């Protein structure tokens, strides 16, 4: 059965994530940074809670991104480099099931990594009366969606490259997603050609836009993130994930070992 095969691969990814120690250490370190920032007291009342929320959300973002890259970039290419892929593919498993299973396991492992940091954030928001816990959870969910998209991108790249190349190119895609704002603004300023303006617009709509998953300022300033925004961003993430998994699976299908 398709779902059971995917589940088996996903479970194996989860077990491996725990066994490799890198992710638990990263999670502990992230929790430590968030906890220590909760006791900073050189800001005036009110500012302190905002600063804490800002630090906590940034730590979740940074450590989540690092965990995602470390975990996902070594999944397919790691199997190929260590030649364990021959054992895996000798089993009754289709290649796209392996790709999807790796993805499901990775996003589940990342959710487990992020959960303790979100719990600490929620605890201090509750004790310091620093705003809505629900809004912080919504923002964390959006961050997790960003990690899921990054996982799909990294898996897509890992289907044809080595671990280091997959991690480097994923970081590049991530950075380009933020830099495109600067590029499109610059292009709009210096170019009077309509074609260039259309190209800038096309870049905006067709490249992954990780800024969609950033609602930190809204949460820090106690604004409400509408459920409709969450729904639309989830749809956006689903399209991106499906696209990159499709690309990854197709390339992996064609690859010869």
């Amino acid at each position, binding site marked *: 059965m398709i779902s059971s095969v995917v589940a088996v691969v996903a479970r194996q990814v989860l077990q491996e994530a725990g066994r490799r120690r890198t992710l638990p250490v990263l999670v502990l370190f992230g929790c430590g940074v968030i906890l220590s920032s909760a006791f900073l007291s050189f800001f005036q009342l009110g500012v302190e809670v905002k600063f804490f929320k800002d*630090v906590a959300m*940034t730590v979740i973002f940074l450590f989540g991104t690092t965990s995602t890259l470390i975990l996902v970039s070594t999944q397919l290419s790691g199997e190929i480099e260590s030649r364990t892929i021959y054992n895996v593919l000798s089993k009754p498993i289709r290649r796209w099931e392996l790709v999807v299973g790796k993805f499901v396991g990775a996003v589940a492992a990342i959710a487990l990594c992020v959960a303790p940091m979100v719990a600490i954030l929620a605890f201090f928001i509750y004790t310091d009366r620093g705003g809505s816990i629900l809004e912080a959870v919504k923002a964390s969910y959006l961050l997790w969606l960003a990690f899921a998209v990054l996982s799909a991108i990294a898996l897509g790249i890992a289907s044809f490259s080595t671990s280091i190349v997959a991690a480097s190119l994923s970081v590049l895609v991530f950075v380009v997603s*933020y830099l495109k*704002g600067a590029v499109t603004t610059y292009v709009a300023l210096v170019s009077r050609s309509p074609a260039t303006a259309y190209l800038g617009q096309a870049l905006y709509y067709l490249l992954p*836009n990780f800024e969609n998953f950033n609602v930190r300022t809204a949460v820090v300033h106690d604004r409400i993130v509408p459920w409709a925004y969450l729904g639309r961003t989830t749809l956006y993430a689903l399209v991106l994930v499906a696209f990159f998994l*499709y690309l990854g699976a197709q390339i992996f299908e064609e690859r010869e070992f």
Partner: protein
Amino acid sequence: MTAPGTPWVRHAAIIAGFLACLAGAQVLVDAYRPLVNDEADVPFSVAAVVVRSFVGQVRGLLADFLWLRVDEYQHRRRIVGGDLLRSDDEALMPLVRLITWLNPHFVDAYALGGQWLAFHFDRPIEATAFYEEGIQNNPQSFDLLNGAAWVYWRFRHDYPTAAKRAAEAARVAPDDIHKFQALWLEAHILASAGDTSGAIRVWRQVGQIPGYERTAEVWIARLEGSRTSRP
């Protein structure tokens, strides 16, 4: 039998479909984006857009940490030859500018930058421009409206704008003490501009604030005395 090239056409069609869905989903997200992005209406300069793009999602945190540095510089300025070292003062402004690029709602940075430009660097035109940018991004900020009113009044002698900003500060004052400060300022600005009636009207507003009745009476009496003694 599948014709040669058909799978590639199918892949291309699927990829095109995905890209169309992606653009459509982005349009859907954009419709709601301003509700969760309180920086959507801020008119950033190109330099600000570039800096913000490079630091990505850590810009808020970076602004907070830069503010710590500003705070340290501000409180630990060195004294050389019996006077404050000017280079320490000058080191502050780029940091303040960077903070407002990274977080345009960092009111303290705008307030400090405007104050320093006017009082330490004797550049009131730049100071009011900086204040106005801060007010545009944070229209409900008492500190910025009040600070701008001071600079318009004491440095630029632009009494109508100063009085307007002070009146706005009184409207957004968070409590009675701040309201008194803003009205006090507005009354003095109007008196400086020769509008004694306007100043008396403002002092009457001060008289309605609990605890400030006596202060208002004294000032009204003084202003009315000056009006009657005038030839």
